[in-house]
């Protein structure tokens, strides 16, 4: 039987869509930061930018209970194995956002023959959305969450930014 990659054999149609819609609207991130980009992640969770508006503000400390890993910062060689382990401990379905140049490609710490960092989260875990910047602004993180929602529901943009008085 021929099967295109990524297309499930049996589709549950409406149920899957409903589930995906729910998943996209309640992405609980993990309380997990690696370096300076984590500061921007915290800023995105706080009063001014407020990720909770999109249902993504419930930072769960336990990897078992979250859906979204935000790799926020430099992945040193030592942090690599714990990162993979945390990813494996998360319950499926799970998504990963690589926040900042470090998590994308090593950022300012990358040069030939360097020995200290892993240049890119996608070398060790699958990444869904990349957010460039050093550090990206909190708006960047919010945008990446919206893009991830798009990816999960496979529809167009569900919503736009609204003006929220901060």
């Amino acid at each position: 039987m021929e099967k295109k990659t990524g297309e499930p054999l049996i589709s549950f149609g409406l149920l899957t869509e409903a589930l995906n819609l729910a998943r996209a609207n309640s992405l609980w991130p993990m309380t997990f930061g690696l370096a300076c980009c984590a500061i921007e992640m915290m800023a995105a969770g706080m009063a001014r930018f407020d990720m909770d508006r999109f249902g993504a503000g419930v930072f769960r400390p336990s990897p078992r209970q979250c859906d979204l890993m935000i790799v926020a910062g430099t992945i040193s060689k030592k942090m690599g194995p714990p990162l993979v382990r945390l990813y494996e401990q998360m319950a499926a379905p799970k998504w990963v956002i690589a926040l900042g140049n470090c998590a994308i490609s090593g950022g300012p710490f990358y040069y030939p023959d360097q020995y200290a960092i892993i240049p890119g989260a996608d070398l060790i875990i699958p990444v869904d959305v990349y957010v460039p910047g050093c550090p990206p602004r909190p708006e960047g993180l919010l945008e990446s969450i919206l893009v991830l929602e798009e990816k999960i529901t496979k529809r167009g943009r569900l919503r736009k930014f609204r003006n929220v008085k901060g």
Partner: protein
Amino acid sequence: MEFLTQMLGADVARMVVGLIAIIALVSVNALFLIWMERKVAAHMQLRPGPMEVGWHGAVQTVADAVKLMGKELITPTDVDRPVYHLAPIVIFLPVLLSFLVIPFSQTLIIRDMNVGVLLILAFASLTVLAILMAGWASNNKYSVLGAIRSVAQTVAYEIPLLITLMSPILMVGSFSLADIVAAQERYWFVLTQPLAFILYIVCATAETNRAPFDLPEAESELVAGFHTEYSGMKFGLFFLAEYTNMFIVSALATIFFLGGWRGPFLPGIFWFLIKVYAIIFLLMWFRWTFPRVRFDQLITFAWKILIPLAFANLLITALIMKLR
């Protein structure tokens, strides 16, 4: 209804219908409370909170619940399987049964028992067992530590809780919740028992493991406390039980101190719910404005301050009742 009555007899039919109603109430209540908690938290921190999923985030918790149901249920390798699977059920069942005796209005009560208060408090202490089961079975050091803390805390705070409730019971002379509401015909007991009311609210906050007494799940020290290893809907059940517990302690406070369903104009049930949600709002207010206490402070506070105060209150009440 008629069919059920014929088949099971009136009493059992009443129980069945009541239980179904309770399950509906518990789920809707938890969904609403979680949304309310997030909104209250957000507004206290000067941010809007859930805004985009439904009107002002109204279906946010529905999305959360559906998502939790669709999540993978992880059973780590080294857990104590039967106990691990049983714990979320054990925490949820007693919570459900406590609703049997709560008078929502003059007529809306499933079963008025003459030991209603004792029933609720007995079921409430089962929660400790479930938490201990969850923490122990998870085979995870953070879970065990969270469970142990929770047991120490709940045992310590159950004593003043019981003793404070004894004072109004002494004034009424009955353990039945309906009788206690009936006795507040002229004035609420919060007027004659203000100290008991304050003590009760403090103990209730600690009993439900909420901030500032949320040491069992202090996330900066213990990851997520006793439910660290639970994922998906199993974790959802713990969440549900926590918020339902909040409803129960607030309902007890309403019945004992705020006159239950009594109030002018509106039907009883509305007054009851308004009062209950007002107290829940108070508990949420505590959570988002007080920092977490240290563990020794927590235990010292219970044994050295709350318990003597509760005893003093009981003694004075008894004395007054005797002299009158």
